[in-house]
């Protein structure tokens, strides 16, 4: 199967959603599950194939555009398609239990969010990346505002404004690149980046940094992010946290290493990541709104990822990628559970985690919490220890101390929630979970435990991904169309 299907299939499914709807709601929902399922299975097949793989559109790169899949993007592809599959299954329950007036449109945005994110990580043409950036962006604006209530619309508007700013920076950068070296192919840009006038090169780097950094929620460009999470539905937050933020992160670091910016800007990005982590974990302490709380938690984890991914050392990056995968799964799990709770209680106060009575939900939620905190035997622990180990090997003890100290702050609010759940004095209401959710949530929870006790399942891919990121030679060759 050609890589192009990763984009074309969701597009055609999106275009045809009105007709799926006419066949009935189950056809509509089933189509999305089917789509995400094929994408996921297809991605699994790629794990056994020698990479990179390339699939061109119309003309071979560097003139035309192609999708290139290397080991680095494979990891992200796995995460995205898996998360997408899980969410589409979850939506089977969601629209049964909640208002489904605009269900059709939801699936349009959902499919395209997935397609856009995947396109962003596959495309080897920076202008094409920008298009996918906008597709993901518009889908996320619409998904944020999807409920059409006051908060949702406010979130949508804010997201849209920020997205516009980011896109202006990115467009400007792309234009400058084209003006300088006459190409938009990432492989060619990477080859010729050093030939650009140094001052312009700095300007381009900064613009890309601001553009993708804003979307990837890096401090001090992330003041909007919690608002968006708070205003959106919980499953949408799951998508934002597991897929969207990670895709921007991918592009950020892909370009960062391909363009050789790692020599110059490592310290800047590491310290900004550290500040992101610090500020968000502290800020999370005061939150009363559960979605906003986990928004800050997401920001914090992204902060760690920024710190670790920018660190230039293969051990740390490998750990960071593990952490990234683990965080995606855990956050998805948490947001999906919260979705169930919010739809039951019609409230987003943090106290709702103390009000429900369901052993299953409690267990999976606690597994998610502990995993994010990095407590064994859950996957988050392996990620964290790998990151710390990486920092230790490069003798960066400040980073270790920083991560560990702030993690204690993180533990404060996570265990406050757990204590709330365990509080026997609260009156508990039983919550219907829904059959499909049992499957979805247990699959996620089992994965968290599995990666925790048998990490080589994942470290195999993270190591390959790290190599692909740090030695992008074969990727560049493929991006220039060699593999065709």
């Amino acid at each position, binding site marked *: 199967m050609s890589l192009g299907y990763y984009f074309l299939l969701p*597009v055609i499914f999106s275009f045809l959603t009105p007709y799926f709807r006419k066949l009935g709601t189950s056809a509509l929902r089933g189509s999305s599950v089917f789509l995400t399922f094929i994408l996921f299975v297809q991605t699994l097949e790629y794990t056994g194939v020698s990479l990179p793989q390339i699939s061109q559109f119309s003309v071979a790169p560097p003139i035309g555009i192609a999708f290139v899949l290397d080991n680095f993007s494979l990891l992200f592809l796995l995460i995205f398609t898996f998360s997408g599959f899980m969410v589409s299954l979850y939506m089977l329950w969601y629209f049964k239990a909640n208002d489904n007036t605009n269900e059709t449109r939801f699936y349009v945005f959902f499919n*395209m969010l997935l397609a856009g994110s995947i396109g962003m990580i596959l495309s080897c043409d920076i202008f*094409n990346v920008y*298009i996918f950036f906008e*597709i993901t962006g518009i889908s996320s604006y619409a998904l944020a505002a999807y409920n059409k209530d006051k908060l949702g619309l406010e979130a949508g508007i804010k997201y849209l404004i920020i997205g516009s700013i980011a896109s202006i920076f990115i467009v400007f950068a792309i234009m400058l690149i084209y003006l300088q070296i006459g190409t938009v192919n990432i492989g060619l840009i990477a080859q010729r980046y050093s030939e650009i006038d140094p001052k312009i090169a700095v300007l381009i780097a900064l613009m890309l940094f601001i553009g993708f950094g804003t979307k990837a929620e890096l401090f001090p460009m992330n003041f909007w992010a919690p608002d968006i999470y708070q205003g959106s539905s919980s499953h949408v937050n799951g998508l934002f946290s597991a897929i969207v933020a990670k895709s921007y992160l991918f592009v950020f670091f892909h370009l960062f290493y391909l363009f050789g910016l790692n020599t110059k800007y490592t310290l800047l990005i590491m310290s900004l990541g550290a500040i992101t982590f610090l500020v968000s974990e502290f800020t999370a302490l005061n939150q009363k709104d559960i979605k906003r709380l986990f928004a800050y938690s997401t920001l914090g984890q992204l902060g760690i990822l920024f710190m670790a991914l920018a660190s230039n050392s293969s051990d740390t990056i490998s750990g960071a990628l593990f952490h990234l995968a683990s965080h995606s799964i855990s956050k998805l799990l948490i947001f999906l559970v919260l979705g169930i709770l919010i739809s039951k209680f019609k409230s987003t106060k943090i106290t709702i985690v103390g009000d429900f009575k369901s052993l299953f939900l409690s267990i999976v939620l606690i597994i998610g919490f502990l995993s994010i905190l990095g407590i064994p035997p859950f996957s988050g622990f392996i990620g964290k220890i790998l990151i710390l180990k990486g920092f230790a090997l490069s003798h960066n003890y400040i980073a270790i101390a920083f991560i560990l100290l702030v993690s204690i702050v993180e533990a404060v609010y996570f265990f406050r929630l757990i204590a709330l759940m365990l509080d026997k004095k609260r009156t508990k209401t039983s919550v219907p979970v829904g059959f499909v959710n049992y499957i979805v949530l247990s699959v996620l929870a089992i994965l968290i435990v599995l990666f925790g006790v048998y990490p080589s399942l994942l470290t195999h891919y993270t190591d390959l991904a790290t190599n692909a990121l740090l030695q992008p030679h074969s990727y560049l060759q493929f991006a220039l169309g060699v593999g065709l």
Partner: protein
Amino acid sequence: MNLKKEFRLKHIVLSLLSSALMLSILGLLSHVKTNLHKTVGDIVLSLNMQTATANAVTSVVTFFRGIDTVGEVTVLFLATTGIALMLSSTQRTYKKVVHQESFILDIGSKMLLNVIVLFGVYVIVHGHLSPGGGFQGGVVIATAFLLLFLANPNMKLKHSILTLGESLSGAAYVLIAIISLFKINILLGNFLPHPVSQIGELVSGGIIPIIYIIVGIKVGSEMSVIVEYFVKEDYLKEVPHA
């Protein structure tokens, strides 16, 4: 008073800063185009003859960077869906605007409609030969509908037809891309015969005019929908729920 002054001060400072920023960037940009390498555009131009398309921009849009255009169409589709989500009247009831019917306006607009649509179709069909194409033509068609709405706000478009056009054209575009994969093993390749000798003729360039027609239909229907929603927002007042 005081507050206002403060705000002005903030504005002045910020605008000065932005000017300084832009001046500085301007200084940088003054030596921006150094033409270190042959641009992709130059290569495209040299290759363009093979596509048998007279308009090189069209060949770039639909062929060389074809997947961009699929994305672009998708973006437009998403925006339309988003606008429909926000502004669709299914959840609201509008009262009819008391509209003074004007015979001349009515007839005139309907007469003009045909002309404008025809022009739009022309622009679309000749997209590979002359400036213009699917996007431009689609927008021209949408302006025809705008004219109708201006003349008669109570008019309604047939959404089912527009949706059909929108969906099927989009699907057709993707299908063309996939058919191409099966035919010549390249996604979105030009699998129809496109002899170079036909360059400049209406039927030339293989799939390129077909794609532009599809894009035209899609953009036309989408823009019409967008126009309808926005016009109705302006003219029609929402009836508050009881």
